[in-house]
């Protein structure tokens, strides 16, 4: 188990980037892949993509970000990588449906973004859980699925 109590910096920091670059050529950079919700954690146990067991306990004022460098040694670096958000994209069929969908998503505390006449919901649990909750919207023809991007 490796204990990590500080964020050393960001992978783009000039002080760190050249060493990281060298290590990555030697295949010695390990990643901790976190999704959006888990990026908020300060104290947790996690494995890198190579299986190294890490015990992270950073201060409450610190935040993990995509590219945060947690370890930089001569033969190993550990860097945080944010996994891509998965989105459920919905297109409302008319304005009343759009209002209702927006109200509903807010009520469910879903993380959303608006783009191209669609509501995009960030999936933080399996997709069918969201589809289940939205069943009536689909049955009543108020929304249809759309493509993200």
């Amino acid at each position, binding site marked *: *188990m490796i*204990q990590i*109590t500080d964020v050393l910096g960001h992978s783009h920091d000039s002080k760190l980037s050249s060493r990281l670059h060298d290590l990555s050529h030697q295949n010695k950079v390990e990643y901790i892949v976190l999704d959006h*919700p*888990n990026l*908020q*954690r*300060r*104290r*947790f*146990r996690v494995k890198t993509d190579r299986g190294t067991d890490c*015990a992270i*306990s*950073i*201060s*409450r004022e610190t935040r993990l970000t995509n590219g945060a460098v947690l370890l930089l040694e001569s033969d190993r670096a550990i860097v945080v990588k944010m996994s891509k958000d998965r989105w459920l994209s919905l297109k409302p069929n008319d304005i009343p449906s759009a209002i209702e969908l927006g109200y509903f998503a807010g009520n469910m*505390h879903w993380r959303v973004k608006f783009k191209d006449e669609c509501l995009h919901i960030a999936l*933080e*649990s*399996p997709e069918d*859980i969201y589809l*289940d909750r939205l069943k009536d919207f689909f049955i009543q023809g108020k929304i249809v699925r759309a493509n993200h991007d």
Partner: protein
Amino acid sequence: MRTCQDPSINSTLHAAMNRQTLSNGPARVGIGGPVGSGKTALIEQLIPIFSNRGNEIAVITNDLVTREDAKRLQQSGLLASERVVAVEAGACPHTVIREDPTLNMQAAELLERKFENLEVVLIESGGDNLASTFSLDLVDYWMFVIDTSEGDDIPRKRGPGIVQSDLLVINKVDLAPYVGADINLMVKEGQEVRDGKPLALTNCKTGAGIQEVADHIINNVLFS
């Protein structure tokens, strides 16, 4: 002669090691779940386990408008009464653990300042519905406590508390036969909706299953 077999030495050693481990303050652990599912009872069972390991502990309770749970813990004699702090949540218990956890964060900071060797802060949410979840700004790890007498269809109802919690605790296993709840079904459906995250079965009257709950906390946020 005191040897390492002496539990008091072991726990002192352990505490010293933990203090090294626990830089950046104590672990904050959230305990949520519906009204009466056994959150306070679980805390009452967990306290001695941590005390015996030499882990300094404190508790924050969230009641709606009273301090019942805090009083109950203070009077239990399980830990010094100044280690129990009550936050009155007002009408919406989930607000103070998710949307605006400021009051709970202040309570935790107060305890951390007052007890500098504190290693675990347990935060009990006021009893709520299946939708309540903890902000990861407030806690490092959180569990959701349901009980068999609420009905064995609770896991498949897939409330956010059941799906998203780090640990799902199914309590009151002793009552299952009396209410016709199928525990195996609860476990199976719980596992199906939780994407590999663990669940534990407990009886807070006898202490069965509590060590497993403690081990999850120890492993995930105390690291030893």
